[in-house]
């Protein structure tokens, strides 16, 4: 090997360029492990399959040619359950690195941790959101094909997909933040599932008022409200704000651990 295998660089790349490369590396990381594809497969089956079935079931008997039901709730129901495949994808993108110790090499390749944080939050979030929205659209269309009495106006479809995108983006950022903070797949999975699915329903089911009140402040409540547009006790804007606050808090906590503590 000669000492000049690579041309020497005169100009140092700027932060935008370093971020672009870090994001590119994150993308290669994501697509070169099987778990990513397993998560996407699971999400596809649940979102499209359950969504279409739920929509067809809902339309059965209630939808008529005169009073058609909009099929967007196929995607909404589907994502309500199928989002977990996508959130697990985002979580594993972070925690697998701590399980294998490969966070060490990662930080040797991208030692500017703020840049790494940005790339690590952005890439799984974009992937989960884009894939989730596409799957929801497929679910809507499949529902339409199954039951011709459903309808899918463009405006409703766009609005429904936008709400799905918001829920998935917020959920992915939450998962990334939790993963960076806890550095453990098991603890991260438990936390994300509890916050996003289990606690909001469980705490309301006890018929204890303060527990139910507390459940109103969990991210899962905001996600359900945004996806299904009910219950009305929480406004649409309030639900989005709730989601944004949880994502911001999780990212701040996880980012603090990545930026301020030893690599792990």
């Amino acid at each position, binding site marked *: 090997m000669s000492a000049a295998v690579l041309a020497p660089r005169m100009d140092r790349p700027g932060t935008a360029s370093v971020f672009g490369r870090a994001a590119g590396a994150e993308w290669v*990381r994501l697509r070169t*492990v099987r778990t990513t594809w397993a998560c996407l497969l699971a999400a596809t089956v649940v979102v499209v399959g359950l969504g279409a079935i739920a929509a067809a079931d809902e339309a059965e008997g209630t939808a008529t040619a005169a009073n058609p039901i909009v099929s967007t709730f196929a995607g909404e129901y589907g994502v309500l359950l199928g989002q977990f495949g996508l959130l697990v994808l985002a979580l594993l993108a972070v925690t697998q690195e701590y399980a294998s*110790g*490969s966070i060490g090499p990662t930080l040797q390749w991208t030692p500017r941790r703020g840049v790494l944080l940005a790339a690590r939050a952005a890439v799984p979030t974009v992937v989960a959101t884009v894939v989730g929205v596409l799957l929801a659209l497929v679910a809507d269309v499949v529902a339409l094909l199954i039951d011709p009495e459903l309808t899918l106006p463009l405006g409703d479809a766009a609005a429904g997909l936008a709400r799905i995108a918001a829920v998935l983006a917020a959920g992915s950022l939450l998962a990334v933040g939790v993963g960076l903070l806890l550095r453990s797949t098991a603890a991260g999975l438990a936390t994300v599932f509890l916050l996003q699915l289990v606690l909001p329903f469980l705490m309301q089911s006890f018929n204890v008022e303060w527990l139910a009140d507390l459940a109103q402040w969990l991210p899962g409540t905001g996600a359900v409200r945004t996806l299904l547009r009910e219950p009305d006790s929480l406004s649409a804007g309030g639900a989005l704000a709730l989601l944004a606050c949880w994502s911001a808090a999780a990212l701040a906590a996880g980012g603090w651990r990545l930026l301020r503590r030893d690599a792990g």
Partner: protein
Amino acid sequence: MIEVRGLTKQYGAVRAVDDLTFDVRPGKVTGFLGPNGAGKSTTMRMVLGLDRPTSGSALVAGRPFARLAEPLRTAGALLDAQAVHPGRSGRDHLRVAARANGIPLRRVEEVVDQVGLGPAARRRVKGYSLGMRQRLGIATALLGDPAVLLFDEPMNGLDLDGVRWIRRLVRELADEGRTVLLSSHLMSEMEQTADHLVIIGRGRLIADASMAEVMRGESARRQVQVRTPSPDELAGALLRRQLRVHPTDVGDLLVEGASPETVGDVALEVGVAVHRLAEVHNSLEQIYLDLTGDSVQYRVAAEPEPAGQVRP
């Protein structure tokens, strides 16, 4: 060039690295030696910005590593060969590294060939032996054609061919003018590899000297062990020649600062039979043990002193 200045790392009550200051210069293989737990890995992790020093600093090619935009083009490191995602292929692992540092993908194929990973590079790391993982780690370190290289225990778990390969590789890298820091807890590995030694124990600097200097110190302490049926007579003759003689616990004599030739000639002069005459090989291993002896953290209690250790 690596510059370590007053580097300190405190974990609770334990001071893993204690005010270390040394330079690692280009064109040489610098051996970074110390018993297990001496703080070698922690020091390397701080140099690479992975762990935050409690105090002090480290510069790589004149800059803190954590500020480098294209770190692999400046410094490559193999710290822990196991720290690779098991589900990714070796080649994909290298591709991620290349992508993050703006390195053309053809370099991935070049380093795969250079370290002899061959077709295994397409397989998932899960099935790699430790030796293959070491090779993958070294390929990653070489990817950016860096001027500075850090290897933490790279010979660990390698077979003899692998060890020879690493020795040749680090020699070539240093001969090309690169800065090479190579850690090990085994002095014998360094004896044939390093030009310069930085020895630490319990986080503190014990020695920072060229291999030649360390060896010179050794030859001044050369000893000869001699077995004879008339030890008193021979000891008297040796003492008359201003040589220092000590009895060993097996009844032999230990002569300091003399060659076997001298001792043999003296025995012939006084007509004493010699049954055994041998230079006590104070290997680098022994010097290292002497230097780090007080700083070994996990020492076997009641270890019998080897003959070469006998002192007045």
